[in-house]
Each structure stands twice: as structure tokens, then as C-alpha cells.
């Protein structure tokens, strides 16, 4: 089969993809490493012909840069909170959906809806739901629909995201939005997994009249473990790149009015360094890649031990 005619034809078909990948994917990988190792690198100085010292100064610079620890903390906190919550909720919903017959398709469709949205646009809707409109009086004119619901249950209203709001309240808003956004994908994957589980296991459990909880922990979870591993791994990867959901809710200042960048993330940190300090941006991007790589490896290692194929 392998003759020279086939050879050149294959390369011809692949040429557009390869050329574009060389320019926009392969070169950036090498260039990012290069820039990260040239201390204090900026594009402007490079173009002007300035030479840079070789070293790890950019990485030190990133770690010492004011705001970096905030970005790292926010990113990790959001990841650690949203991945377990959304996975657990998605699992509950998927199992519940799988156990019903009437309305199953309809409810499945409803739960998929948040997927086909614009994360900035719907972030603005969540912002409107948590936002207070301050008037002249001691009490805001409108406390927002979420606070209205809280008050209906006898709680006091909370300043979720207006000026002067507290960090934990901002985080709650972000967690609610990110979980809402993450649910459809996870439900889709987990429900797909449940529907392909061999029914014989459940029949056997029924014959033995195994209690529900045991069926869930001893049959459903192990059989679903490859899908669970998949949604957890992709959840962490996405979580470490959290950015646009925060812009959607808090705007480009990444925080409540008067507390700029208090909710900034790793990706936000990288973007802000683009166009003024590429050395720092590159070092931060490589640190982010390193974190994602390590977390994914840990996830794969754990899931290999716990996953039953």
C-alpha cells in the first residue's frame, strides 16, 4: 500500500493543518518555554533588540508578584469546592433520572439546557439575581431575588456581591454559578454510563433482595467509576482554567466594586500579563500547566486503583 504517490498525497491533505499547527500550536510551546527562561522578558524590549539573562527569575517573579497568591488561592478554592459538589449532585440527578420512566426524556432535556448557553451572558443573569439595588434608605431598594427567597424562609438578607461584600459570600455566588454550569455535562456523561450498565447485575441484586443503599455503593458506583473518573478529571482541568464565569458575574475587574481582582484566577493572572510582561505570563502559564498535569496524574493514579472496568 505504501507507495510514493500515496505518501505525497497524504502530506498534501495534511498540509493546511500542519502549517497552522506549527505556527499557532508548536511554535507557542517552544516560545513560551523560551520566554519564561529569559529574565524580565517583554516583547517590546525584544523587538527593540534588548538581550535578556537566562534564568528562572520569571518564575520567582510570578511567585512573589502581588496578587499571585490570591489568584492561586481562588483557583484552588473554586476547584476544590465545585468539582465534588457538582459531581455529587450530577450523580444524584443521573441516578434519579435513570430510575424513572414517565417524563424521563423531558427532565433530561431540561437538565441539559444550561449547556447551550453563553457563560458570560448567563453569568450576568446570576449577577442580577444576587445583586442588590441600593436606594436612599437604610435598606436597599431591592435585595435581589435570592435574598427575597432567603427572607421568605426567615433568614436575613446577605450582601452577596455589592460593594463591601465579604469574600465568602462572593465565593458562594461563584460556586452556585459554576456548579449550575457544570451540571449538564456531568449528568449527560453519568446518565449515559448508567444506561449502558448491564441490567443483569440489578436483577441479581433484586433476587437477593439487596438493600438499595448497598446496590448503589456496591453495584452502581463501581460500574460507573470510569465515567466518574472522567467527569472528575475534566472537572479539575476546567476548574483550574476558571475565568470567564467570574467575568460574567463580577465583570472584568474580577471582584465587587472597590475590591478589584479579589476573585482573580490563574488564567486571569496570565491574561493581565499579556501585552506588558510576556516573561511573567509565560512562567505563570507553565506553572498552570504543571499544576494541571500533576493533578491529572494524581487523578489518573487514584482512578486506576479505584476504577473497575
Amino acid at each position, binding site marked *: 500500500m505504501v507507495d510514493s504517490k500515496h505518501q505525497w498525497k497524504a502530506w498534501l*491533505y495534511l498540509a493546511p*493543518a500542519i502549517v497552522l499547527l506549527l505556527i499557532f500550536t508548536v511554535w507557542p510551546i517552544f516560545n513560551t518555554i523560551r*520566554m519564561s527562561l529569559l529574565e524580565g522578558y517583554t516583547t517590546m524590549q525584544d523587538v527593540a533588540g534588548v538581550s535578556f539573562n537566562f534564568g528562572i527569575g520569571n518564575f520567582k517573579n510570578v511567585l512573589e508578584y502581588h496578587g499571585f497568591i490570591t489568584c492561586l488561592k481562588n483557583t484552588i478554592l473554586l476547584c476544590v469546592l465545585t468539582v465534588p459538589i457538582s459531581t455529587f449532585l450530577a450523580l444524584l440527578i443521573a441516578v434519579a433520572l435513570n430510575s424513572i420512566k414517565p417524563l424521563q426524556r423531558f427532565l433530561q432535556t431540561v437538565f441539559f439546557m444550561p*449547556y447551550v448557553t453563553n*457563560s458570560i451572558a448567563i453569568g450576568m443573569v446570576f449577577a442580577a439575581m444576587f445583586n442588590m439595588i441600593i436606594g436612599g434608605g437604610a435598606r436597599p431598594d431591592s435585595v435581589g431575588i435570592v435574598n427575597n427567597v432567603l427572607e421568605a424562609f426567615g433568614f436575613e438578607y446577605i450582601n452577596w456581591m455589592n460593594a463591601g461584600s465579604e469574600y465568602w459570600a462572593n465565593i458562594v455566588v461563584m460556586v452556585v454559578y459554576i456548579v449550575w454550569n457544570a451540571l449538564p455535562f456531568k449528568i449527560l456523561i453519568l446518565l449515559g454510563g448508567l444506561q449502558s450498565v448491564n441490567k443483569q447485575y440489578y436483577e441479581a441484586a433484586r433476587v437477593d433482595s439487596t438493600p438499595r443503599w448497598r446496590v448503589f455503593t456496591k453495584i452502581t458506583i463501581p460500574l460507573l467509576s470510569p465515567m466518574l473518573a472522567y467527569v472528575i478529571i*475534566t472537572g479539575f482541568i476546567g476548574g483550574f482554567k476558571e475565568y470567564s464565569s467570574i467575568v460574567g458575574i463580577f465583570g472584568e475587574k474580577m471582584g465587587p466594586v472597590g475590591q478589584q481582582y479579589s476573585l482573580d484566577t490563574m488564567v486571569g493572572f496570565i491574561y493581565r500579563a499579556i*501585552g506588558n510582561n510576556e516573561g511573567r505570563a509565560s512562567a505563570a502559564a507553565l506553572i498552570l500547566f504543571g499544576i494541571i498535569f500533576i493533578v491529572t496524574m494524581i487523578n489518573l493514579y487514584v482512578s486506576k486503583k479505584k476504577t473497575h472496568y
Partner: protein
Amino acid sequence: MSDFKTMQAKDLQKASAQQRVVKVGVQIVTYLFLFTMALIVIFPFYWMIISSLKEMGEYRQSIPTLFPKVLDFANYAEVFTNEDLLLGQLFFNTLLVGVISTALSLVITVISAFAFARLEFKGKNALFAALLATMMIPGELFTITNYQTVSSFGWKETYTVLIVPFLVSVFYIYLLRQNFMQIPNELYLAAKVDGTSDIKYLWKVMIPLALPTIISITILKMMGSWNSYMWPRLVANDDAHRLITNGLRTAFTNAEGVTDIPVQMAAVAVVSFPLFLVFIFLRKYIMKGVSRSGIKG
């Protein structure tokens, strides 16, 4: 003896009645849970539409109305005529970029996937593995250099910069290659014997057979243009080339950071409407594409 039998039967009946009660109870709890969650999932969409139809006075009321007393479409009129937003331009830019990049991207994806699935050449597997490896790297790492590259090409604030850097998606090539591999090789060899050209074979046999995957890719790519935010923000944030998400985020907030929420919600609804149509009519293709990917549009 017969006494014993009836007793046993009664016990069994009782036990199965009990089981049935438990089963019905579990079903009720399941439905209650699902409906509560479904309501929470739907609510933001409801609130967006309701708020977009309220006058500012009604929106500011301390006890909110769940349905507007007066349906006020003025917010929508404001969205369509606002001179800072330039909605028409935003729609045009986004559609133009979306259609051109989707079309070009499809051509590149199809011929690349064909080469990987059907042609033999040296280093094929190594090249394919290398391509897949790049999928692990976060896109932000590329953005830094790509920003320099497009600046040096003089592409900033053009349509080109919004289209060209993202034409190749390794993931789409992978997805379509998998699909092409399922088509029996004998068909290709038979076509070769008949003297059919590769392009004709692709067009007449492979594309029709892989159509669902190609549709999934098309929708995901179009949605990608509609939702892309950061790259357009960096490289084409001028009135002539701004894309819709970017325009939306900054509109209707004055210098003091005070937002006209009803008008903003109307704008969000207008931007979400095409996505809603996609959801209604093309849901199954997205679900198919997504369940194999894990990539948000």
C-alpha cells in the same frame, strides 16, 4: 396444612404490599427531588426573560413580582437601537466569523481526518500521537505567543485574527478520524479500482456516512464563535470587529458601575435566543458530540 398455606400467602401479600408502599414512596421522593432541581436549573432563564420585560420602577420594588404587571418591550427597543452596543454590527461580525471559520475548519478537518484514517504514510502514528498530546496543554499557554505572532503579522483588529488561529482543532480531527475508521476499507479499495478520485469518494461516501459527526462539529464550532470572549477581547476589541459576547459584557453599565439591569437582561435574552433555537432543534447532535468530548462549545 391448608391453614399454614393461607398464612404464608397472607404474609407474602403483606410483604409485597409493604414493598409496594416503599417503592411508591421512593418514586415520590425521586420526582420531588428531580422537579426541585429542574426548577432551580430553569429559574435563571425565567428570571432573565421576566426581568427583561419589567420597567425599572417595577424591577426595583422591594417585593419582586414573579410576572411583570406591565409588559414593557421598551428594553428590547433600547437594546436594538443603543448606540454604544451596536447590536447589528456585533451580530454581523459574529455570524461572519462563525460561518467562515466553521466552513474552513470543516474542510481542514475532513481532509486531515481522511489522511489519518485512509492513507498510509511514514510516521503517521507518531504524528497522530503528537497531535493528541497537544490537547493536554491549556490554551492560555498558546495565547501569549499567538498574541505576539498576530501582532507581528499586522492582523490585529481584522477578521483574519478571529478566524485563522483556531481553524485546526485536533479534537475534531480525532473525532472524525474515529468515525471514518468505522467505514470499511473495502469500499475505498473498490472505489480505487473503479478509478474514483479521493475527493469524489470523500464527498459521495465518507461525508454522508459521517454526517452526524460533521453536524456535531459544525454546531460546536459555531457555538464557539458565539461564546468566545478572551481572544477577541485581546486582539479585536474595536467597534468594527468586536464580537457579541465581548460587546455584551461591557454594555449598559455606566462609569460608576451602575447597571440598568432590565435592559441588560433584554440584551442577554437577545444574545441567548439563537442558542436557545440551537438547543430546541439541534440538541441531539450536541449531546452526541459532547458525550464524546468534554469540551464546552
